[in-house]
C-alpha cells in the first residue's frame, strides 16, 4: 500500500491517512525514503491520520534524519489532533518542522 502523492512548488507531498501503526509504518518509511531519493523537498500531509503509534513516530524520525543527511527538506503539514498530541507527548513537536 502506498499513500497518494502530488507535487506543489517543487515539493513532493505525501498524503498520509488512516491508522499509522505497526502494520503500515514500514510502508510509510519506505515511501518517504524513495521520495527523498528523488526529490529535494518532501512533506507529509497528516491531516487525515486518525491514529499513530510509536512505530509511526519512529518512521517519522528516521525520515527526518535521512532528509538531514541528504541535505533535503522534510516537513509535516497539517497534523491531525491525534498526530499532534502524540508528537507533543514524545516531546518531538519542536524536533520536526510542522506547518499547520
Amino acid at each position, binding site marked *: 500500500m502506498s499513500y497518494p502523492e502530488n507535487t506543489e512548488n517543487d515539493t513532493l507531498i505525501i498524503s498520509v491517512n488512516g*491508522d499509522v*501503526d*505497526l*502494520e503500515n509504518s514500514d510502508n510509510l518509511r519506505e515511501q518517504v525514503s524513495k521520495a527523498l531519493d528523488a526529490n529535494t523537498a518532501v512533506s507529509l500531509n497528516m491531516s487525515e491520520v486518525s*491514529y499513530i*503509534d*510509536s*512505530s509511526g*513516530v*519512529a*518512521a517519522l*524520525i*528516521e525520515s527526518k*534524519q535521512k532528509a538531514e543527511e541528504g541535505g533535503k527538506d522534510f516537513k509535516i503539514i497539517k497534523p491531525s489532533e*491525534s498526530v499532534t*498530541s*502524540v508528537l507533543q*507527548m*514524545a*516531546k*518531538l513537536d519542536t*524536533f520536526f518542522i510542522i506547518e499547520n
Partner: protein
Amino acid sequence: MSSKEFHSTIKNLKHIRQFVEQELLKNSVPQNIINEIKIVIGEATANIYKYGYLKDEDVKNKILAKVLVVNDEIEIHLFDNGVKVDKSMVKPRDLSDVKPGKIGSYFIGKLVDYFDWSDKKSDWVNHLILKKKFKS
C-alpha cells in the same frame, strides 16, 4: 467485564484497539480518554506481537483482552502466552535523546495511572493490568 480473544496477527492489532474503543464508548468514557487508552492498548499489544510472540502468527498465539469500567476507573487486562515479560527490561528511555524506537513504554507510563504484570498463577504466561481513572 467484557472480554474477547484475538489471534495475534499484525492485522488484528487494530481490531483489538477497536474492541476496547467500543467497550469504552458503551460505558460513556470521554473521547479524549478513549484516544489515550487506544494509544496504550496499541503499544501494549504491539509489544505482545513483537516481543511476546516474536511476530509469529501461528493460530495458537492468542491475545485475550478484558475491559472493565467501574466508578470512573478503566481497568484493562491483556493476556498472552508469548515469551515471559522481564519487567526489569521495561524501562522508558530518555526522550531528550531523539532516536527511533523504544518510546512505546513511555507512552503507556504517561497515559495510565497504573500498569504492571500480575504475578498470580494463571493459564496465561503474561497478564498485563492497566488502570486509569477519569472524570465523567
